C-alpha cells in the first residue's frame, strides 16, 4: 500500500510523518531539484505501508517544480491513499487544496494538524461535522502531543485492508461544477493552459466552498493565550532588531561549524593514519607491480584524508545547522530581512546561510544551497561559493602567503569584494528569475528531534553513497595527471603569463593547481621568489578561480555536470580577467 502526504507549506507534514513512523527506513531525495521527497515505511498489522512525504504546495494546479514531482509521484507510484495534512489554525486556506485533491478521486484522510495550537489560540474545530461535509475521514491531530495518532493509524490500516476493493479508483471526480468540463480534457487544451495562470471560475468556487466549510466547522472561543514563543517571534519580526539577531545566528552557525571541524580533525586523522597505512600496504602487496599500482597506492590513502577529516564532519554539522534553521521557522525570515541586500546579488536573503557556511567549508555549503527557492538562485549561489568565497583552510594559507611576500591585503580584499558583487550582478541580469517575492512566515517553533534526525540522515547519507566514491575516483585521476609529468611542460608559457598577468609560469601553475586542492596552491607560491606585486596578482588569481575537487564533486551531485562546466568556465575566466586587470592597473 502506498500513501502520499500532501499539504500546504508549514503545516507540519514532516512532523506528522515522524509521529507515524518512529523509525524511518528508506530515505531518498530527488537530486537535480531542490525538491526532496522522503519515502518511509510503516509496518503495521503485518503489512508494509510506503509513505511519501512531499514538499508543501498551495495548489496541485500550478506549474512549480514541487507540483510536477508530486503529480509524477501520484501517477507513477499507484497511490492508494492521500493523507491531506491541513493546519488547524489556517483551515480556510488549507481547505482549498483539499477540494482540489478530492477531485483526483483517490481515497483520502484529512489530518487536521496542530489542533493543540488552534485550541491555544481559541479556535475550536468540529472534526465530525467536517467529515460529514467533505465525505472523507477526518482526524484531529497534534504532532506535538500525539493526539489522534492511534485513530489515524487504525484508519490507514482500515483503508489498507480495503485496498483490493478500492483499486481502480483514481478516476477524476467532479466536485466543482463549471461550464468548462475538465474531465474530457487531456491537459493540453486552451482551458488548461489558461487555468495555470489565471484564476478561473472553478478556482473561485473552490475558495468559496473552502471558506464556507471552514466557517461552518470553526468556532472562535476567544481565549487567546500568548506564549513566550510568540514574544520571541514578535522580537525577531522587528525590522532592525530582527536583522541583527538573524545575522548573529548565521555568524554563530559559522563559528560552530569551524569549531566542530577543528575539534574533529585531529582524532579522525589519528584514526585514519593506521587505516591508510594498511590500505597502501595491501595495494602494493596484492596488485601487480606497475605505474597504475604506484598511483593507486598513493591516491587512495590521499583521497581518503580530506573527505574524512574535513568534508565528513563539515557535512554533518552543516546538515544539522540547515535542519535547525529550517525547522525553527527562521529560514524564510532571512529572506525578509535581507531581501534588499540579496537583490544586489540577484539572490534571496536566504542565501546568507550557504554563503556564510562557505567561509567554513564550501563543500557542504553547496549542498546547503538546497534551501534557496529556485534553480537560478542556486546556480548563482554555487558560482559565488565556488569562485569567490574563500573557505577557512584557504583563508589561513592565503594569510600566510600574503605576509610572506608582503602582498597588498587591501588590493586583494577590494578585488574579491568587487568580483563578488559583479558576478552576482551580471549573473542575475543574464538569467533573471521571476521577481515575485511572496513568503509565508511560519510561527517560530521548537524543532522535533525525530524530524531533525530524519533530515540529517537524508542529507548526510549522500557523503558515503556519492561524495566519497566520486572524490576517490577524481583523486586517482589527479594523481595520475601529476605522475604523468604533464604539468612540467607548462614552463614554456612563461612569455604569455608574464605579458598577460605579470607573473612567472610557476605561479600560473599554482593558479591551475587550485583545481586539485585550492588551499595547497598558495603553498607552491611560498617556494617561489616573487615580488610583492607578483604575489598580489597571483594570490588574487588563486583566490578567485576554480572550486576545489570536493566542491566540484558536490556541484555535480547538486546541479549536474552541465552546471559544473558553467561554474568552471566562469571561474577560469574570472581568474584570467582579474589577472589581466590587476596587471594593467597596479603600479
Amino acid at each position, binding site marked *: 500500500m502506498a500513501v502520499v502526504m500532501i499539504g500546504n507549506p508549514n503545516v507540519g507534514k514532516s512532523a506528522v510523518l515522524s509521529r507515524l513512523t518512529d523509525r524511518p527506513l528508506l530515505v531518498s531525495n530527488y537530486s537535480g531539484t531542490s525538491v526532496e521527497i522522503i519515502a518511509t515505511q510503516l509496518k503495521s498489522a503485518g503489512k508494509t505501508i510506503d509513505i511519501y512525504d512531499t514538499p508543501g504546495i*498551495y495548489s496541485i494546479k*500550478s506549474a512549480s517544480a514541487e507540483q510536477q514531482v508530486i503529480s509524477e509521484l501520484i501517477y507513477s507510484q499507484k497511490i492508494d491513499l492521500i493523507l491531506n495534512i491541513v493546519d488547524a489554525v489556517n483551515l480556510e486556506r488549507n481547505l482549498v487544496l483539499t477540494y482540489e485533491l478530492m477531485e483526483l478521486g483517490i481515497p483520502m484522510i484529512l489530518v487536521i494538524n496542530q489542533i493543540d495550537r488552534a485550541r491555544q489560540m481559541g479556535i475550536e474545530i468540529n472534526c465530525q461535522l467536517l467529515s460529514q461535509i467533505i465525505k472523507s475521514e477526518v482526524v484531529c491531530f497534534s504532532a506535538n502531543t500525539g493526539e489522534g495518532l492511534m485513530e489515524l493509524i487504525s484508519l490507514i490500516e482500515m483503508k489498507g485492508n480495503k485496498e483490493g476493493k478500492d483499486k481502480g479508483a483514481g478516476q477524476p471526480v467532479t466536485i466543482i461544477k463549471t461550464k468548462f468540463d475538465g474531465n474530457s480534457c487531456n491537459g493540453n487544451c486552451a482551458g488548461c493552459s489558461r487555468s495555470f495562470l*489565471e*484564476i478561473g471560475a472553478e478556482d473561485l468556487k473552490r475558495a468559496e466552498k473552502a471558506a464556507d466549510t471552514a466557517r461552518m466547522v470553526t468556532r472562535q472561543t476567544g481565549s487567546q493565550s500568548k506564549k513566550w514563543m510568540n514574544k520571541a517571534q514578535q522580537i525577531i519580526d522587528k525590522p532592525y532588531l530582527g536583522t541583527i539577531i538573524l545575522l548573529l545566528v548565521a555568524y554563530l552557525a559559522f563559528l560552530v561549524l569551524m569549531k566542530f571541524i577543528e575539534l574533529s580533525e585531529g582524532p579522525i586523522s589519528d584514526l585514519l593514519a593506521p587505516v591508510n597505512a594498511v590500505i597502501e600496504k595491501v595495494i602494493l602487496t596484492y596488485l601487480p607491480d606497475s605505474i597504475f599500482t604506484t598511483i593507486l597506492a598513493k591516491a587512495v590513502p590521499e583521497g581518503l584524508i580530506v573527505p574524512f577529516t574535513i568534508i565528513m564532519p563539515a557535512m554533518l554539522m552543516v546538515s544539522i545547522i540547515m535542519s535547525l534553521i529550517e525547522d525553527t521557522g527562521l529560514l524564510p525570515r532571512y529572506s*525578509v530581512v535581507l531581501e534588499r541586500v540579496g537583490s544586489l546579488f540577484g539572490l534571496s536573503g536566504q542565501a546568507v546561510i550557504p554563503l556564510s557556511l562557505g567561509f567554513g567549508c564550501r563543500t557542504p555549503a553547496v549542498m546547503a544551497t538546497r534551501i534557496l527557492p529556485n534553480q537560478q538562485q542556486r546556480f548563482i549561489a554555487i558560482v559565488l561559493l565556488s569562485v569567490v568565497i574563500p573557505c577557512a583552510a584557504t583563508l589561513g594559507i592565503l594569510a600566510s602567503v600574503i605576509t610572506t611576500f608582503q602582498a597588498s591585503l587591501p588590493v586583494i580584499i577590494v578585488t574579491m569584494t568587487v568580483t563578488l558583487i559583479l558576478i552576482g550582478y551580471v549573473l542575475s541580469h543574464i538569467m533573471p528569475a521571476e521577481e*515575485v*517575492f511572496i513568503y509565508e*512566515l511560519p510561527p517560530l517553533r521548537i524543532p522535533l528531534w525525530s524530524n531533525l534526525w530524519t533530515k540529517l540522515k537524508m542529507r548526510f547519507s549522500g557523503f558515503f553513497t556519492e561524495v566519497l566514491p566520486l572524490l576517490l575516483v577524481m583523486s586517482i585521476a589527479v594523481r595520475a595527471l601529476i605522475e604523468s609529468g604533464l604539468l612540467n611542460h607548462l614552463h614554456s608559457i612563461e612569455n604569455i603569463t608574464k605579458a598577460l598577468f605579470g607573473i612567472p609560469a610557476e605561479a600560473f601553475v599554482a593558479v591551475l593547481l587550485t583545481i586539485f586542492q585550492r588551499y595547497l596552491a598558495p603553498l607552491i607560491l611560498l617556494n617561489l621568489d616573487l615580488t610583492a606585486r607578483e604575489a598580489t596578482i597571483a594570490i588574487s588569481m588563486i583566490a578567485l578561480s576554480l572550486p576545489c575537487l570536493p566542491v566540484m564533486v558536490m556541484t555535480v551531485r547538486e546541479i549536474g555536470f552541465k552546471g559544473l562546466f558553467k561554474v568552471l568556465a566562469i571561474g577560469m575566466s574570472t581568474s584570467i580577467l582579474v589577472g589581466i586587470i590587476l596587471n594593467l592597473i597596479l603600479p
Partner: protein
Amino acid sequence: MTLKDMKPGQKAKVLKINHGGNLSRRLFQIGLIPGAELTVISQHPFKGPVVFELGNATFALGQGVAGAVEVYTNENK
C-alpha cells in the same frame, strides 16, 4: 491606497489585485483575494518587504507585489 503604503498596525481589506496572470494566481493561493482582511506587522526599511497577518498566518510580500494589492481602510485617509 496599496498594501505598500500601509503603516505597521494598520488593518485593511483587500479591494482588488492590480495584476493578472501568475502573480494574482499566487496571491489567490495564499488567500489574498478581494474582501480578505489583513493587518500590517512591519514595513522593512529601504523599500524592503511588507510583513502582514492574513487569517492566522503571516506573510511577507516584496514592494513590487505589495504595490499591486489595492486595499481600503476604515480610517478614510
